[in-house]
């Protein structure tokens, strides 16, 4: 439990620093919250603190813990390499309970009480927007590690906002480019009726225009539905070639399971734009043949050295298990952030922003960089197909990487479109 030890150390040094701060800021209490004061009060020996709000409890709890474990690996590697001239990094993990309000409070505490230098984390579109809001108002750099289109847009973006995760536009676009020419033009959508589902559909439609797809059905379901059977007959009646299932978590598992039972796989290709590793492990045979997109799959280690290195480190601490896709975001987000710190030679927000804007990094999946206008990480998207249960060699062997959609700014929405 290295993170626990880290927290204890943090408390000790935090207390002493707080005393320093109090003395320094005596009589000027109002000014004490300005970032300028922090920088003065922070000695060279202080650790570099990264606040990490993720939903440790709730439906994505196990994925969030995975993100925290992976983020800790990035911190450990940074420290093992000597830190920033001897200044060590530490990760302060907090539970945002998958609620925007809770996340905002935790983020505020991390910034104002724990005096973190940076924020990284979240595992939901709406939660990351809330975290971003708080961080942006306080001029603190936030590295987001879950999918959202809106965070790139002028309404939410600030120069302190970075987005390490892929976004729905990018993911659906890459999957559409692969699927539409191969599997057919009659396309149906089953989508979760909230921002993430709508963003994915928008991404598919935009890519689909280039391929001349015909949309034959678009069925919205409430989030956290148990029974999808009532939504399926109308999709079947529309006779699509491709069904894009635009949802997340157990909604994805349940809808795929039930579509399979309705015999959909006999007449159409099932596509899940964000095809999740852990959901596939929990879902078993129902996923057979489903195609989707992913930021990462552990078998990339056969062709990508940085993936191999990351997997090996992770396996050592985790009974030989490989890391998950969303877990890897934790590693990449914190890793990129610390690479920026190293490059800047400082924890000063503006200097780190400048360093990240010109950083080329390869933490776990190949070359990545942040586009200057929206700080979106330009990165490869992996198109994966779920293996038939009969072909599976071991319990972690669940996907084939069938295509790599190379990272390219051209596939993103233009800066002008985002209002930037």
């Amino acid at each position: 439990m290295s993170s626990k030890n880290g927290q204890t150390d943090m408390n000790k040094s935090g207390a002493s620093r707080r005393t320093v701060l109090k003395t320094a800021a005596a009589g000027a209490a109002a000014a004490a919250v300005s970032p300028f004061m922090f920088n003065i009060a922070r000695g060279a020996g202080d650790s570099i603190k990264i606040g990490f709000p993720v939903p440790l409890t709730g439906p994505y709890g196990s994925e969030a813990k995975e993100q925290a474990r992976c983020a800790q690996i990035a911190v450990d590697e940074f420290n093992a390499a000597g830190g920033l001239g001897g200044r060590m990094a530490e990760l302060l993990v907090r539970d945002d309970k998958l609620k925007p309000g809770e996340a905002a409070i935790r983020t505020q505490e991390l910034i104002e009480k724990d005096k973190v230098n940076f924020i990284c984390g979240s595992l939901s579109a709406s939660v990351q927007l809330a975290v971003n809001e708080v961080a942006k108002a306080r001029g603190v750099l936030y590295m987001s590690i879950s999918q959202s289109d809106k965070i790139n847009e002028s309404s939410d973006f600030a120069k302190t906002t970075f987005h390490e995760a892929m976004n729905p536009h990018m993911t659906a676009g890459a999957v559409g480019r692969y699927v539409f020419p191969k599997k057919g033009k009659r396309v149906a959508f089953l989508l979760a009726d909230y921002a993430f589902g709508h963003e994915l559909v928008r991404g598919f439609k935009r890519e689909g225009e280039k391929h001349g797809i015909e949309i034959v059905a678009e069925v919205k379901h409430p989030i956290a539905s148990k029974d999808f059977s009532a939504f399926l007959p109308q999709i079947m009646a529309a006779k699509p070639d491709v069904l894009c299932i635009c949802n997340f978590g157990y909604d994805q598992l349940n809808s795929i399971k039930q579509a399979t039972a309705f015999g959909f796989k006999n007449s159409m290709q099932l596509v899940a734009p964000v095809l999740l590793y852990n959901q596939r492990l929990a879902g078993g045979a129902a996923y057979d043949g489903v195609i989707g997109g992913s930021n990462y799959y552990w078998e990339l280690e056969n062709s990508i050295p940085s993936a191999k290195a990351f997997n090996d480190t992770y396996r050592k601490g985790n009974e030989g298990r490989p890391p998950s896709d969303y877990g890897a975001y934790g590693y990449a987000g914190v890793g990129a952030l610390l690479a920026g710190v190293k490059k800047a030679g400082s924890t000063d927000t503006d200097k780190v922003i400048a360093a990240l804007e010109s950083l080329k990094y390869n933490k776990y999946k190949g070359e990545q960089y942040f586009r200057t206008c929206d700080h979106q990480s330009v990165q490869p998207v992996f198109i994966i197909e779920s293996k038939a249960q009969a072909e599976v060699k071991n319990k972690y062997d669940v996907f084939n990487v069938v295509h790599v959609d190379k990272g390219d700014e051209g596939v993103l929405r233009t800066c002008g479109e985002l209002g930037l």
Partner: protein
Amino acid sequence: MYPWDIPAQLWAFQIFTGLAQGSVLVLLAVGLSLIFGMLTVVNFAHGAFYMVGAYVGVFVYMQTGSFWLGLIAVPVGVGTIGLAVERFLIRPLYGRGIDYPLLLTFGLSFVFIDLAKMMFGKVGLPFDAPEILQGAVNIGIGYFPAYRLFLIAAMAVLVGALWLFLEKTSYGLVIRAGARDTEIVKVLGIDISRVWLMVFGIGTATAGIAGYLSAPMESVIPEMGIPVLVQAFVVTVVGGMGSLVGAVVAGLMVGVVMAITSLMAPQLADASMFALMALVLLVRPQGLFGRKGLME
């Protein structure tokens, strides 16, 4: 989609889908209704028993590889837990208010959920229908999942058996008599507490079977019983607390209403269930088949 845009075949299919969805609700509501009708216990742990049923069944399946064995192990296992709960936790509360057992079972449901998390983890267990029931069957109006057909049949058999037991056996006679007038049954020298014990066991066993039968269609997770509890209560209220026929009719009705609303206005699917309940309560406050005065 407007009703006149929908082809007849899709209508038929949608109604059939609703019947399958309703079958699970019927099984849940039968147990809930039975327990309330006989014991006047509002069992808030019913959803948790549903979840326990799924876990017991999947556990048996993981050990033995047999889906069918689970159909025996689940009612026995969950029923036994139910017996213990009635005997040691609920029985001391008889004669207090209706809210005592309600609060107890409410708390109990969280205990069960946490136990499931501790024993099997927060992430769901993979579970599929047995091979013979996988795939779809042509039912004349289109292909329908074989497993859901099995589900409708299993519900019919179970409810039929329960009806025969209650209406045609001497045990059933005692149970029905106990529900009508506890005092007279006691005067006749029958140990009513044993009847109640049995009823609670049967009620929880059917909840367990409902959970196990749902398991191949959804995710087996510790929280799986929470949303169905609400639906089961709605069905019980619509059908009338304590009525077996009411549970069957209302369960299928709620299933069909939700399926058709999902087709025309998906965002209203959940609300449609409550609208139906409100409508029924306005016309018949005791529910479609409920006896008057049970709540007093």
